[in-house]
């Protein structure tokens, strides 16, 4: 592995973006996903890879660097967003990092993820930090607002300074197997993003089958998605290991065939440090070390960071930690 940057915790964006390709339905429809076999692989993975002690501490720092620290609430305000951004810049107490011989300024989250209305506040709070702002868009979470407005929403967020746009796909295109429509929609979203990177939220919990998840993943990559992402966090089922395995196997195939790297973002439901380790090992095993960088892997999470902080304090002190010893975001 060649790290893309001297600081492996910093998002580098050094790879060429996935430009997409013509819709290849033969390929997309040949994709299979056997649910039981995929579940079996996921069930045994945690028992196959164990990360302990100092390795675990390092992996948890890696996990932090891949977090899209998120607030997507109706009651978000500028001040609340500023607080979150500050947490994103200083995610772990500096004394803990010092004991791990890590310079505190090298540790930060992957991005701050907000609604459009909060983009400006976030951009200003993060100024100079290098942390990008991600905006959820296109009528998030349902994606059922007028098409023209969804496109306009992207442009406005980009104008407001969002460097990453998390779009939601029209689930109905998947459920009715209207792959051309899905491709066209994704392609239009990608174009509207301009230089901003686009993450395609598949809302996997609403797609019915892993096969649909696999095929939708492939179509979105063909249409130029920079990332594929599981869920909005609003569906009843969010990120799971089987869904993740299904999606990253498509990323692997796409890379193998086109040479382009597409990122992966599981979102929703990942709140434990241990879970983040399992996800990272899944990525390492199935996609390889290059994907263990924040430019290709993110956790969409709001409470994961807190658990990781407690684990890190335990690592340096040997004592189990408590919530109130860590700054809230």
């Amino acid at each position, binding site marked *: 592995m060649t790290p893309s940057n001297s600081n492996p915790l910093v998002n580098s964006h050094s790879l060429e973006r996935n430009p997409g390709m013509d819709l290849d339905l033969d390929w997309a429809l040949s994709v299979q996903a056997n649910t039981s076999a995929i579940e079996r*692989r996921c069930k045994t993975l945690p*028992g196959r890879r164990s990360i*302990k002690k100092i390795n675990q501490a390092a*992996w948890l720092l890696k996990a932090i660097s891949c977090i899209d620290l998120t607030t997507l609430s109706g009651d978000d305000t500028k001040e609340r967003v500023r607080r979150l951004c500050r947490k994103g810049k200083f995610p772990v107490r500096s004394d803990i990092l010092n004991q791990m011989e890590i310079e505190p300024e090298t540790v930060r989250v992957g991005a701050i993820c907000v609604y459009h209305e909060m983009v400006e506040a976030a951009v200003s709070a993060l100024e100079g930090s290098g942390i990008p702002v991600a905006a959820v868009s296109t009528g998030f979470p349902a994606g059922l607002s007028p098409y023209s407005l969804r496109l306009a929403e992207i442009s406005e967020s980009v104008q407001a300074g969002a460097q990453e746009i998390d779009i939601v796909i029209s689930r109905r295109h998947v459920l009715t197997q209207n792959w051309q429509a899905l491709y066209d929609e994704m392609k239009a979203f990608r174009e509207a993003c301009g230089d901003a990177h686009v993450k395609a939220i598949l809302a996997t919990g609403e797609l019915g089958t892993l096969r649909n998840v696999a095929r939708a993943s492939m179509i979105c990559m063909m249409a130029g998605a920079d990332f594929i992402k599981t869920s909005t966090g609003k569906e009843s089922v969010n990120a799971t290991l089987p869904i993740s395995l299904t999606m990253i196997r498509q990323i692997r195939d796409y890379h193998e065939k086109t040479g382009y790297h597409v990122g992966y973002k599981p979102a929703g439901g990942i709140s434990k440090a241990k879970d983040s380790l399992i996800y990272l*090992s899944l990525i390492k095993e199935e996609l390889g070390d290059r994907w263990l960088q924040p430019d290709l892997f993110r956790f969409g999470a709001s409470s994961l960071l807190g658990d990781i902080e407690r684990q890190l304090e335990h690592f340096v002190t040997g004592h189990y930690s408590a919530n109130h010893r860590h700054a809230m975001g």
Partner: protein
Amino acid sequence: MKVKEILETMDYGKAPESAEQAMEWIAKHSKKMGLYINGSIECPGGRDSLESRNPANGEILAQLCQANSEDIDRAVEAARKAQPKWEGLGGPARAKYLYALARLVQKHSRLLAVLETLDNGKPIRESRDIDVPLVARHFYYHAGAAQLMEKEMPDQRALGVVGQVIPWNFPLLMLAWKIAPAIAMGNTVVLKPAEYTSLSAILFAEICHEAGLPNGVVNLVTGDGRVGEILVTHEGIDKVAFTGSTEVGRKIRQAIAGQEKELTLELGGKSPYIVFDDADLDSAVEGLVDAIWFNQGQVCCAGSRLFVQEGVAETFHRKLRARMDKLRIGDPMDKSIDVGAIVDPSQLESITRIVEDGLKEGGVRHTCPADLPEVGCFYPPTLITEVDPACQLMQDEIFGPVLVGTTFRTPAEAVALANNTRYGLAASIWTENINLALDIAPKVICGVAWINSTNQFDAAAGFGGRRESGFGREGGREGLFAYIRSKNTPTHELAEIKALPGKSEPVGTEIDRTAKLFIGGKQARPDSGYSTPVFSTEGKLLAQVGQGNRKDIRNAVEAATGAKGWGKSTAHLRAQILYYLGENLSARKNEFADRIDSMTGCGQDKAKLEVNSSIDRLFTYAAWADKYDGAAHGVPIRGVALAMNEPVGVIGIICPDESPLLGLISVLAPALAMGNTCVVVPSEPFPLSATDLYQVFETSDLPAGVVNLVTARHSDVAETLAGHMEIDAQWYFGSGGLSSLIEKASAGNLKRTWVNQGKSIDWNDSQQAEGKMFLRQATEVKNIWIPYGE
């Protein structure tokens, strides 16, 4: 290593399981393991000792005691003494002990797992997550089997004392597979663990003690192959159960021939792993990790022959090589290791030799690039493609982490390749098409088929093979029959029944009726050109029958093999034909009765009874044909394990000499009902009831070749039949004392045998001469695991 450096490499680091408590346990035994006889662990003086080593580093773990014949005598004696009381306790009382064993296995689970890994070299993940939980599960399941025995199988009883010999690849799991069903059914056991891996068995002995198991119910004798040899041939043993190599299994079959012992063998394999072009290729690749790199490939049912549909082969092999490159090989005690140590240097040497020799015939090798540890027995995961059936690598069991593969074009070709082997243990079939999966699974010769999965095991599902992978099942209801017998098992000695003497008189004015042989639906002259006269009780010539020889047997087997479509016909059709046979026999009742009377002199009443019973028996098996169902086992997956009853294949049947019609019908009808094709050698002294049946067969829509009759001296053809590689089972009910010869000769292709051991069956007694036991002998249970879920 600093955090910063790890961030660069993202290494897993080491996650070693502690060996401390296991080493303490070994130290507690002063590093000297004893024998477990009659409830106590003892180290008798003056015995040779064997070193038990950790294959991952070569260190000596402990000394094992080499049991001598006196020790084995004592162990068998202890088991014999304990058996009646143990059986007499009744199922529910025995269930409590099995339940306690299950609980104790769970309580000591980590110690068992660590000990197993130290001794065997398998990754701790496997011993911890797979072996030991399956051991506990096996005892729980069989606690239940004991609980229900009297109610569910009221006509069955224990066999007695069982001698069991197990291999080194799953030391504790194989012990559980052997001991749990045996003691659940009321048997007592003497078990010999493998010499490389006896430690967990000694810990299990302590668990037996902790569970309060009565003395003598379980006995363990350790040592090398000589101990196994003495044990299996011991006259105090009623049954031998063996898991291990086909080579040793064959020797056991020969060694105990004629000793009137039951036998089940679970032997080697070269199981196919079939990937169709519509499969989830990534999942099928991952499945191979569990198929051939599980337990370093030292698994009898390992998916070791890879068949990929040609159109996706390149993609699949590329994905597979990439996956292999990610495998982690090393210290089995490390929790992040995929592939551990080979059990012993001799096994490592054997794997290396087979691969290097095999590659001389061709093949493209890909080896997992991971560095192997500098010490210890390690072999890299290996894929060899472009290996064809004509290569040794495709035929010989390697018993290591080596996968060989080729491609196929059509489903039919996949089946043909899969079955082009002497083995028949397991198969994995990958396709998203349920029509295809459920079509292929029954066609592959095996005892276990896994759809879109591999190496799935559970106590509720039978496991075992066909062909030279052995016979008998372990697990499930089908597995219990390996340890029980009918309470109506015959015990009377069968005296030899000789042909009656007479004088050949001129035929006179009657038109000559010389019965030929019946092969492939046609009457055929015997190859020998000789005939045997059959005389009545008054010494009058009744007829002459052809004297069949080995060539006639050859032709008959060929015809039977060609008629195997019978097994694929519907059960309804087979029932109809059996009814039709009964109907046509009924129409000629008197003629058949006269014939029996004239040959045997049994009198008209008895002769009529025999004919009526024969008709009744045909009707009984016609009834059973579509009612002897399989089962849907409740295995712990989202899915089902279908235990399907399949025909055994071609069955050679040497009929009873007594009851010339009823005896023949009693053994032929269940074989036909279950879809087997048969080569039948009728009663030697009274063959005319059989030859009279030709016309009944011909008028009953019985397809040609399904039944082939060869009149012959039993002793002339018994060895030919038992040694014939195309025959899947050989039955013997004759009075000529050929049981031993047949058992011995059957070792060639390890066909199933069912012989009378010189005991007399009362063919008129339906308790003895009909029923499920006959149907079980006429079927193989195939467990097809079908996980589902979308």
